[in-house]
């Protein structure tokens, strides 16, 4: 093995029943580099990583690791850790009710005895050396998500790891937190750790990575130095097509012009819920696409949840088409023609074990009532219609939704709400964690629906996306509405300055 190569995967194959997830993939990681692993959902990134960490066993191929003679066998995540391959997942897998030190050392001690004083001081040393703002004795759940993420990394690094895999570590962090994380990553790079970085954020790739490996449909597309691969090329490699599709929606939306005397589809006044937001006013017109923007945790989601009745509503009024309505729970909102695609797809959206078909009909079925189930035949008809309409990639309508890729799961949830034929559709982060192709599909769909007269509120943490789709943006900061932008004001710098606050 060459000197500076720490990990080499050669000709990896892996099949699942009916799917060839990896077909002869090669991957090379060098010492002291941050290597982005890019690809759409279903490209095989997760599978490759799970093979590397011993979660899945490979069907074919070799894994070579610096310091080991010949191919090594990894049968379990413990094996992987032993040889120095550590992974930090998107969802934090630590124990929130234990202290930071306990989390750092859990499962790594031999024997029963434990010198906690030493453990605590060691932990503090590590935290300090990595500049992580936490103390050893602090309970983990009192740390912010970003710090928890960093502690997970510190734990991984402290296990003498040569290879650190970061699987979507930034998706629940805000910008400052991401920046802190990057500082940590750069620090580790300088210490010679090879880092595999899986993310959907292009910006982040270009900010921190040295090299990119692109995968598509279970195959290797290629490995590139970052300077040789401009963004546009990267996207086209990932999609396997040229970028004309993107350019369709690149132009900014015109400011929405209200027709004289038009009554808003929905008008909220002083709406507030128990989720900790300040009362806010909001309205949306027929055929309008608007959005809530702001940093993570600014209360974007909480606002739309308050409109939909997803959290406990504590005040304020809602008028639909000028008529006051009472919306205290989801069913009230649904009956008034409101649909809500939640931010947390896994936790609030999909019903994992149920089939794609059942997931699609669920909301409409609830609206129809307990005693009026759709016939099986009708269910299949509906499911097939929406699978086709949204080009959902699924083996059949009976496939459990949890076995679909993230983007396709999101499309199923979208289908569920479209099937209720809502007057007003709320999409909360519909594009988070899904592949670029599906993102574009969803954006196009939103514009199409609006042109057909549906009102849509669109929330995304990617500002580009918002600017491309929305004609009006409600800006939030610290859990309250701080501005509303439309027309000429709708540009990146204006939004940023509004988010940051006028006095800066």
């Amino acid at each position: 093995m060459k000197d500076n190569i720490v990990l080499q995967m050669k000709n990896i194959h892996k099949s699942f029943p009916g799917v060839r997830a990896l077909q002869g993939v090669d991957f090379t990681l060098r010492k002291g580099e941050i290597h982005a692993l890019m690809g759409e959902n279903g490209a095989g990134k997760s599978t490759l990583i799970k093979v590397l960490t011993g979660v899945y066993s490979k069907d074919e191929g070799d894994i070579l690791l610096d310091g080991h003679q010949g191919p090594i066998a990894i049968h379990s995540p413990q094996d992987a850790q032993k040889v120095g391959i550590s992974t930090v997942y998107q969802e934090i897998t630590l124990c929130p009710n234990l202290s930071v030190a306990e989390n750092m050392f859990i499962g790594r001690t031999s024997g029963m005895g434990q010198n906690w004083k030493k453990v605590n001081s060691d932990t503090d040393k590590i935290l300090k050396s990595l500049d992580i703002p936490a103390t050893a004795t602090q309970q983990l759940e009192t740390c912010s998500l970003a710090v928890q993420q960093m502690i997970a990394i510190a734990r991984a690094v402290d296990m003498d790891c040569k290879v650190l895999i970061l699987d979507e570590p930034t998706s629940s962090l805000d910008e400052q937190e991401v920046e802190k994380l990057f500082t940590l990553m750069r620090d580790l790079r300088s210490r010679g750790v090879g880092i595999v970085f899986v993310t959907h954020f292009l910006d982040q790739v270009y900010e921190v990575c040295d090299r990119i490996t692109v995968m598509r449909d279970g195959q290797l597309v290629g490995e590139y130095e970052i300077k040789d691969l401009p963004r546009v090329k990267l996207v086209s490699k990932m999609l396997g097509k040229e970028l004309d599709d993107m350019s369709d929606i690149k132009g900014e939306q015109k400011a929405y012009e209200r027709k004289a005397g038009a009554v808003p589809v929905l008008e909220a006044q002083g709406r507030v819920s128990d989720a900790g937001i300040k009362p806010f006013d909001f309205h949306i017109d027929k055929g309008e696409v608007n959005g809530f923007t702001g940093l993570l945790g600014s209360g974007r989601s909480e606002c739309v949840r308050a409109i939909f009745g997803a959290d406990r509503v504590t005040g304020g009024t809602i008028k639909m088409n000028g008529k006051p309505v009472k919306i205290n729970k989801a069913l009230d909102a649904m009956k008034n023609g409101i649909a809500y695609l939640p931010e947390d797809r896994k936790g609030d959206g999909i019903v994992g074990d149920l089939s794609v078909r059942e997931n699609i009909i669920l909301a409409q079925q609830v609206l129809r009532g307990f005693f009026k189930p759709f016939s099986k035949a009708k269910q299949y008809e509906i499911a097939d219609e929406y699978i086709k309409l949204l080009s959902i990639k699924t083996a059949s309508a009976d496939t459990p939704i949890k076995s679909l890729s993230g983007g396709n799961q999101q499309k199923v949830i979208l289908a569920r709400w479209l099937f209720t034929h809502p007057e007003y559709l709320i999409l909360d982060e519909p594009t988070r964690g899904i592949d670029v192709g599906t993102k574009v599909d969803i954006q196009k769909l939103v514009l199409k629906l609006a042109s057909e007269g549906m009102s849509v509120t669109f929330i995304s943490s990617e500002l580009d996306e918002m600017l491309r789709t929305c004609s009006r943006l409600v800006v939030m900061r610290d859990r309250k509405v701080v501005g509303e932008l439309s027309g000429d004001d709708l540009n990146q710098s204006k939004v940023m300055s509004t988010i940051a606050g006028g006095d800066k």
Partner: protein
Amino acid sequence: MQKNEVKKSNENILMRMVRNQMFIPLLALAVLAIFNLIADPSVFKITLSENSAGNPVLSGLLITVLDNGSELAILAIGMTLVTAASGGQDISVGAAVAIAGSVLLRMLCGGNSRPEELAMPIIVAFLISCVVAMLFGAFNGVLVAYFKIQPMIATLILYTAGRSIAAWINNNELPVITDPGLSYFGGFIPGIPIPTPFFIAMICVLIMFLVLKFTNLGLYTQAVGINENSSRLNGLNPQIIKIISFVILGLCVAVVGLIKVSRVQSINYSVIAKDIEMDAILAVALGGNALSGGKFNMAASIFGAYVIQFLTQTLYKFKVSADALPAYKAVVVIILVVISAPTVKEWFGKMTKKFKVKEVA
């Protein structure tokens, strides 16, 4: 579409069989049947004879299984729903059966522990016991749904107190009913040689399947069991649905109470339907349903109930003493848990794949 079909037919038949939810109970049934046949080839003989009242009745091991397994099957219906919706089990059904039976007797006796005549028609008394059992079910449901108590812990209350409540309902008396009408439900209806409990179970099963077909009970229950948050955001009320599942179990309990009381025309508060909750839970598990809730297969649970009874009856046949039965059932539980564990499933997958490769070669 066509592509999918091709894919399906290409899938290994063995693999598909293993994945079917009916596979485990069927396998258990087959093992038991073979075991019985080896020990005694005439074991499945069914004879038609007359009982002491001069009515034709069928008898034999299989009839006994159908007879006694029916109570379990009825409880398995409710237990399946509770398991699916709440992700836990109701361990108070035995005690609740005691309550339902006690109410039934109290109504029939009208306070006199040895009545010459029934104080009211059996159907009226039964309906009252249904209402009471459903109220107790609702009590459990409220604890689980609104107070977010683990189902096993919540139902522990009634499990502990139920039999005392049952005794209190009848002032600690042990009423004995002599009216032959009551004996039909747990025995035979004159002229019909098949045990009545089997008919009652089949009626319950039929009603359940009609309910599942013509209402959204199945979809709602599973949705709530799988993802409560998501269900709420789709307009469901998870609390109500959990309570409904417990109330339905209460109804099942009342039906079983009727059968149990009918069998002995009396009641013994401390032993009636003792440990039946364990068998009912086992039936749900044997039917391949996850005890952590979510998706369920009603037919598999009901089938599982009869398989459990077959096991019990087989153990009796081999003179295993009743207090050792739980140990044997524990073995079944262990096997079930092991074969449904992910690692073993993966191993199964590998084995079938090897099998397939060999076939191709």
